[in-house]
């Protein structure tokens, strides 16, 4: 079984907030720590009392049946919604009251469940947008093409190509993002998110719509990204092959609440998880 080669025998250790991180990240400041995170939409608790901790180099999975509140958690983390309860610590800093843009600058980047690229821009432009806040030159050197502009532009171009090379996409740099095939668009979205230099990468169903071969490649690439950039990855996914294959810690949500946390093996044998996915076993007739 191909997924076996990803399987790591990670030992998970508890961290103060009743969560767990891989042993190698123990003692380090978690990149993300939420405590009692929740949001209410007019009385409906979409997410309730979620305690999560993600180690600095952990690949963590967030799973659960449809409508469990997984994407809402992502929206809370990226400040698309402001939480009504609890706190989010990003690299130890409270993100309360921040805007999405500020959260991004703090080191959080994400992809979307339904691809949201800048379709009318080229692939390279999509990536350089993310590099924006790292390369500085002012408006005048931009309009009048002063040396500062060229230097910044050259650096940006090189960096964009470097990032695209992770997914072997450098030859597509000048194509319109909207004209790419579906799989390439999904990969470009990940590259674009990486360009903002995150310390935590959120992937919302990265394997959706991919064939088994592409999923296999994606798994390799997620591990490669983690190793190369030394960042944490938190992913939502329904493809259990991927989740069980690469995630070190898994958090299961149902009806907005965490029903289980642990390593892939623990999760697979957890009765509450099986019940959430398959329903309660009826008594035998």
């Amino acid at each position, binding site marked *: 079984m191909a997924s076996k080669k990803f399987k790591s025998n990670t030992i998970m250790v508890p961290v103060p907030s009743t969560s767990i991180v891989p042993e190698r990240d123990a003692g380090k400041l978690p990149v993300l720590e939420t405590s009692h995170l929740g949001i209410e939409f007019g009385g409906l608790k979409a997410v309730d009392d979620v305690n999560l901790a993600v180690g600095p180099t952990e690949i963590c999975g967030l799973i659960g049946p449809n409508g469990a509140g997984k994407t809402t958690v992502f929206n809370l983390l*990226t400040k*698309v919604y402001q939480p009504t309860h609890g706190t989010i610590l990003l690299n130890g800093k409270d993100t309360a009251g921040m*805007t*999405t*843009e500020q959260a*991004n*600058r703090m080191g959080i*980047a*994400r992809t*979307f469940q339904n691809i*949201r*690229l*800048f*379709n*009318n*821009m080229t692939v390279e*432009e999509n990536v*350089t*947008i*993310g590099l*924006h*806040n790292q390369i500085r*030159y002012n*408006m005048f050197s*931009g*309009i009048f093409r002063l040396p500062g502009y060229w230097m910044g532009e050259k650096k940006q171009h090189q960096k964009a190509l470097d990032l695209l090379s992770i997914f072997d996409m450098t030859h597509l740099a000048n194509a319109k993002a909207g004209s790419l095939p579906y799989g390439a668009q999904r990969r470009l979205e990940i590259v*674009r*998110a990486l*360009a*903002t230099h995150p310390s935590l990468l959120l992937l919302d169903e990265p394997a959706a719509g991919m064939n088994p071969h592409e999923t296999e490649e994606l798994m390799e690439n997620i591990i490669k990204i983690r190793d190369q950039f030394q960042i944490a990855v938190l992913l939502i996914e329904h493809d259990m092959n991927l989740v069980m294959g690469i995630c070190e810690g898994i958090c299961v949500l149902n009806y907005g609440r965490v029903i289980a946390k642990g390593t892939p093996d623990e999760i697979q044998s957890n009765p509450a998880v099986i019940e959430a996915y398959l329903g309660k076993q009826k008594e035998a007739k």
Partner: protein
Amino acid sequence: MITFLTYLINGLNIGSVYAVIALGYTMVYGVAKMLNFAHGDVIMVGAFLAYCVCAYLGLHPIIAVLGAVIGCTILGILIERLAYKPLRQATSLAVLITAIGMSYFLQNMAQLIWGSDTKSFPSIIQGDAIVLFKTVQDGVTKTLTLSPINILTMASCFIIMIALTLFINKTKMGKAMRCVSEDKGAAELMGINVNLTISVTFAIGSALAAVAGILLCASNYAPLSPTTGSLPGIKAFTAAVFGGIGSIPGAMLGGILLGLIENLGKAYVSSELADAFVFGILIVVLLVKPTGLLGKKIHEKV
């Protein structure tokens, strides 16, 4: 022939003013996804500011233009901050109504400050008209002339269009604008400051409106009064829709074509029907090609 060319020049002249106004509409629509119906009245404020600097303070026209541009830029940012920003999450209808309210507010404020009578706008550029062509036909001398204000209008519109195209395509802020116009949420997640981007859009749009207002009044297309901006504003909006709202080259093309059609219609069909002609175009465009000449097609994946 010369008569035709004269109409053509006049059409190009007013057309380029429409194009500059339409740029303001189209940029704001593209980035903030709203129709800023107060844009026409910013034109009027710009013209009044220039008039004040010229007539009351007696300063040089160039300073008047600068003063009007700076004044309108600040006004544009203020309008966005006070009237539209609180409605960022509201329905587009609420924003539209606010924009109309803002339009009336500006008109009435102008009436309060400057009175409702029309003012004669000082000429901002002196000099003799250039004679391009001269013929004597049946003993009548016909000349094709290009007045300094014509040259100034067309030249400044041309420069504005080039500068704006460069700005949108080559600068960081321009790129940010394109991102925000495509997907505000995704742009925020790329570390783009959406509020700042929208403010800059309004600032540029309003600065363009000030220039357009001065050119409009200086070419004597409209007398200066609190309602000066309404009709050109609506026509420029038509031009923006004609060219494809949200598209910058579309606004330029739409503006110039509209000016030509209006002037030739005035000359060869009926001067009373010229306005009806212009709005007739709006109806035809909306029926035949709702996205406008250069508008993007919206693909809906099924």
